[in-house]
């Protein structure tokens, strides 16, 4: 019994080591969100910049849209931000959901790193995030012209995922709507 307890730290460390090893070898793969293929849950939340005004997803219906969940406390969001800026410059409308954040910090963050968003919903309590099934920040959703979620990207957007997944998908969805 006692001996078993003394082995416990070693066993726990072994588990951490295995996790690190898996982390080293595995590539980020896709997980299917139950929301993919379903209509995007609409939200109505106060705007981050102008609290009196509210932001609704349905305002953008008829366009191919990205919805990006972010927060100023999220360090990985800083990494993906340049890619969102690039997408925004290419004319892709991006909706932000500022998840469990504080207004002054979020505003300072935007000032420092730039604003890639058409509009930002301020989701202080995480209610919108609940509807969207957010389980980590950042997450990015691609929504087609019919308002259906077509893709969910968990974690930071990288140069590779931008080039190989997001951009081709956005181009395809845009063509799809035209034909």
């Amino acid at each position, binding site marked *: 019994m*006692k*001996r078993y307890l*003394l*082995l416990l*730290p*070693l066993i726990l*460390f*072994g588990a*951490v*080591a295995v*996790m*690190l*090893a*898996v*982390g*080293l070898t*595995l*590539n*980020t*793969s*896709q*997980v299917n969100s139950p929301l993919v293929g379903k209509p995007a849950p609409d939200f109505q939340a106060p705007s981050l910049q102008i609290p009196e005004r509210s932001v609704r997803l349905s305002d953008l219906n008829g366009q191919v849209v990205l919805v990006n969940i972010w*927060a100023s*406390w*999220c*360090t*990985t*969001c800083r*990494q993906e931000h340049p890619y969102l800026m690039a997408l925004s410059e290419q004319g892709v409308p991006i909706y932000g959901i500022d998840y*469990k954040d504080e207004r*002054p*910090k979020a*505003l*300072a*963050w935007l*000032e*420092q790193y730039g604003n890639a968003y058409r509009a930002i919903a301020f989701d202080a309590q995480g209610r919108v995030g609940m509807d969207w099934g957010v*389980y*980590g*920040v*950042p*997450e990015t959703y691609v929504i087609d012209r019919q308002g259906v979620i077509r893709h969910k*990207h*968990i*974690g*930071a957007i*990288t140069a590779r995922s931008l080039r190989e997944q997001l951009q081709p998908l956005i181009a395809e969805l845009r063509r799809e709507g035209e034909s």
Partner: protein
Amino acid sequence: MIPELGQFALLLALSLAFAQAIFPIYGALRGRVELMAVAVPAARGQFVFIVCGFAALAYAFLTNDFSVAYVAANSNTALPWYYRFAAVWGAHEGSLLLWVLILAVWSVTVTVFSRELPVAFRSRVLGVMGVVSCGFLLFLLATSDPFTRLDPAPLQGRDLNPLLQDPGLVMHPPMLYMGYVGFCVAFSFAVAALLGGRLDSAWARWSRPWTTGAWVFLTIGIAMGSYWAYYELGWGGWWFWDPVENASFMPWLAGTALIHSLAVTEKRGAFKRWTVLLAILTFSLSLLGTFLVRSGVLTSVHAFATDPLRGVFVLGLLVAVVGGSLALYAWRAAKVRSIGRFELLSRETMLLLNNAVLTVAAATVLLGTLYPLAMDAFGLGQVSVGEPYFNSVFLPLGIPLLVLVAIGPLLKWKGERWPDLMHKLRGPLLIAGIALLVLTWWLWQVSLGAVLGITLAVWVATGSFEALRERVSGRRNSFTALRRLPRSIVGMALAHLGLAVFVAGVTAVNTFESSRDLQMRPGDAYTVGDYTFRFDGTQSIQGPNYQATEARVEVLRDGKSITVLHPQKRVYQVQRSPMTEAAIDGGIFRDMFVALGEPLGNEAWSFRIRLKPLVRWIWFGAVMMAIGGVICITDPRYRRLLAREAATRQSTVEERFSEART
């Protein structure tokens, strides 16, 4: 030529590290004095060669030798010389070299200050440090060689990351590493004790000053990093729960627990197994932290994709050092018997609770730091666990800890009667009670958190004073009695007082900070509290390697000018990244913080203005904790006891040596 010499010096250091790792430990096992004698010269020789290697890299930076790839990637001729020197540890390869150098510094310090230790024990300690050093030197030379040449050499370097071009950053990593690596000494003492099979209170006493020393450096290092983030990142925050910060905070929490648990093991012979485990865990967290940060695993697992060997090596090293020591623990710790019974109400119980809380806190940070990594490992993408998580778990841990901090030092070892405790606590209870009433009356509407926070700060502070007062009361001349108090008691009281100051600072900033983001045109003024900020216009400034726009903001109080602040917006020439240099007027009771935002056209600028009451107390508190630690280390008790032990041991040891020689 110089870079090749540097590389050669590191190779020589590696071979000496091998000697230091193998011979002393084997010698201690077999009782062979001539093999154990290798430990000291090997450690000192290794130090000399690592200094040579470090000096060679520093020389390459100072002379702008861009044929060295690492220099070309992290320096530039326009960089002032002191930043070129600091750039040595500005990126992965160089900071690893700094790590190894600091390990060598600690090893040499051990050879100097451990003459009175039993020879076999000292050999084992240095041997274990040699093993760690071997691993790191191998990692450095095999995967992260800072001396790799570029052919043809570029004419100009890519410059140091502008965020790192700051006096705070020159000293921050060395301090932090002194702390991280310093826990290697406590770790080596613990492993040496496990190897020797003798875990007694003498072992705990020997490792106490080393542990406290490392903890002092880590405390200062973390405080410097926090202060740097405060004025350099331009948001006015002082802690961000960044993975990099967490990596230093985990060993700090574990190290703080270790300091307290070593006290119990030394004085009462209790918690022996736990203390040894904690010593191993503290250094393991240092290692894990260094790796998580330096390897880039945390920001992206794929950082290793460029050099998969690096990741595998890192993991191998971690498994060898941490796994090896934990296996040794599982094997040897069963023999250890803890002695010393104690009552429920005793100082032992308090320190046990302290350890429980601090360990849970460290585990919480570890979980929050590793969770994103686990998500990534299982293919669920990269996520951040941030402030909401940490704030919600740290509050319920912090409150009981602060309540106990005031009580613990007042209790007797073994056991205390409740009426006696109540008698001792009457002062702190009375003062904290009055504080609670006054604060509730004053802040009822504002924030209950503030009432709680400041009351706890008062409670801890009065408790710390009571711990001193109790020991001098009843003496005829209380001033001389105060001076004659053991330094470890004074240091402890000061460190606990530092905690109170820290808590007061955090509470005040969180509750009473006034912040405003606004736009102003030249001539506009804005009033917050008693202060009026007037924007007088901007001018261009040319720095050594950057251009800046500097605003002039005059601060007035009752119509009289108090100070002029000059916040800047800098653009560094090489990397073209904009940087915010906030202007801060610091004071004991409040900081005025003005950061310049974006130009909004028409000479208007956006500004961030913050009034931060007591924000400096956060760092004052940390400095007081560190000074308290230093006072504890200088307690002459440690040296006296060592000398006495050595004297009584001398005869028997010599007999054993003569046996071993024959």
